[in-house]
């Protein structure tokens, strides 16, 4: 990924410090500019963090406190009661686990089927290769809204409406265009010699793929797996179109569940519980991001830099 190079200029600076020829006036100007840069950056940083901190603080407050205290005042006592309400009564726990279940299977499926198709399209010549490739890639040009009604009908006909199977298959289907596009480009860059050596050693095409080519494509696979996990975890339109009607609520995913708590809250709402629910869905993201921020950044920007 190109972006790992961004620290280049900063790193090279140390070496040239003693070679500095800057005059006094330049130094002053630099300090001023650098000071201005810090203020501008800090302001935006604050704008990004403030709403999140506010949500976490409010999750420990009572409804009365939320209405009468200053937004960033500390809660009078730390109690996890609101979290209990959110997890059980507002079903956040269930929505969360539903999301984990659906995304785990659909991302695994996307990666397996996506890289299988991409591999064959990238490295084998056969009639219809280009046709199938463009069929997949053309999917990138269509807005999902266009497919909304027919998708609903297709799932209804197959009896897959309101089922995890339906949702998972749809997630896989709509993740394939980008996955195939990206992985085809990636498989094309892999060297031929190793593959040829494996064939000479008598490896079958299938074994060659799983034991030689997939491990070699690891960095591409990691990027695009992250891309798909984040994309599918955050999906909102597809679940609200597919998981609706009677009995659907217990199969809802997290985005859908939280949005519904907010929309249907009304006047007697338990805002504290909503804030607890929000915190429960934000915190795991913060933790995962803290550990994998480099991979996540490069995974999500992978599409735009290729």
């Amino acid at each position, binding site marked *: 990924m190109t972006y790992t190079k*961004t620290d280049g200029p900063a790193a090279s600076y140390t070496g040239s410090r003693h070679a500095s020829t800057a005059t006094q006036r330049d130094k002053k100007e630099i300090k001023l500019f650098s000071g201005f840069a810090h203020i501008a950056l800090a302001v935006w*940083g604050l704008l990004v963090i*403030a709403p999140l901190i506010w949500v976490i603080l409010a999750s420990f407050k009572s409804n009365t406190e939320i209405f009468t205290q200053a*937004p960033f005042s500390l809660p009078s006592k730390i109690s996890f009661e609101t979290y209990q309400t959110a997890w059980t009564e507002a079903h956040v726990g269930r929505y969360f686990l539903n999301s984990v279940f659906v995304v785990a299977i659909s991302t695994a499926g996307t990666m397996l089927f996506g890289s299988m198709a991409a591999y064959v399209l990238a490295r084998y010549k056969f009639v219809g290769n280009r046709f199938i490739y463009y069929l997949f890639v053309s999917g990138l040009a269509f*807005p999902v809204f266009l497919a909304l009604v027919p998708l609903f009908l297709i799932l209804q006909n197959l009896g897959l409406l309101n089922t995890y199977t339906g949702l998972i*298959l749809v997630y896989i289907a709509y993740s394939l265009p980008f996955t195939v596009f990206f992985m085809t480009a990636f498989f094309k860059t892999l060297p031929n010699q190793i593959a040829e050596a494996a064939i000479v050693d008598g490896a079958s095409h299938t074994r060659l793929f799983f034991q030689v080519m997939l491990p070699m494509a690891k960095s591409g696979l990691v990027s695009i797996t992250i891309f798909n996990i984040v994309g599918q975890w*955050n999906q*909102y339109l597809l679940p609200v179109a597919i998981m609706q009607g009677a009995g659907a609520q217990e199969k809802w995913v997290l985005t859908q569940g939280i949005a519904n708590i907010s929309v249907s809250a009304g006047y007697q709402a338990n805002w504290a519980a909503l804030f607890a629910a929000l915190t429960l869905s934000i915190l795991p993201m913060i933790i995962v991001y803290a550990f994998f921020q480099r991979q996540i950044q490069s995974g999500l920007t992978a599409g*735009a*830099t290729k």
Partner: protein
Amino acid sequence: MKHGRYPFIIGFLIVPVAIYGTFVIAAYVQAFQLSFTNWRGFSPDVSYIGFDNFTKLFQDSTFWKAIQHHILLLIFLPLLTIVLALFFAFLLNVGGGSKGGRTRGVWGSKFYRVVFFFPQLLALALVAVIFSRVYSSDDSGLINGLLNQVGAGPVLFLADKNLALWSILAVLVWQAVGFYVVLFSAGMGSIPTEIYEAAALDGATRGTLFFKVTLPLLWNTLQVAWVYLGIAAFDAFALVNVMSVDRGGPDGATTVLGLEIYRNAFDYAQFGYASAMGVVLFFLTITFAALTLRVTRRDAIEL
């Protein structure tokens, strides 16, 4: 080698193509077909009504309202996001000044990048829920709570017709900026420092550096950014659906095509009409992307 080649190819393609064909290709083909019918979902007989859906659509004031909103988003979402992101990316990469002809990033630039990027990881639906509370018109809202402290307000962000769409636009910008800061930073990082050094030796100011060196070399990235943000401007469904008063209100002041498609399909069972809207949305998106790429085309500068 030749042996087992075709069974292998077919074996590897059949499942992905079947899934994709069933849920994506078939759906898109049917959408075009449905847009010429008056089907309401339950009646067994479907009649083709030609372009009636489209004629009705072009006389529908809600549709035109949605188009106006998309135009506003289409102008301001990319503009605000790209300007802010370029500004921050430039500060992060060369804001530390130049010493001995070398430009460098400000202290802590890595930390800033990590923080700025985080909203990109949150689902828009979640962001929408957070900001519908931030914007709350009473003292429980973040902004009105703060305004109340200084004796001002309340501002009715989402209930005021003239403010609602701008409030939603602000959230889209809030979420998007960090992604483009990282994207532009990557682009700026791959510009060789020698170019900056040479320019600085020639006495170029920071402004000149930005407009004469950074911007032209980032052109391709900017183009990608504009197309991405434009496509996002044609969506905005999650935010409008969750945040706006009366879904798309007040009085239709925030509605977008995605929301109208969803409502016509699932609230009013107007399957044909909703599909016609989808077809229009498709042509709008594709025209926008093609136009942008065409108008902004420039010879890439090879390094």
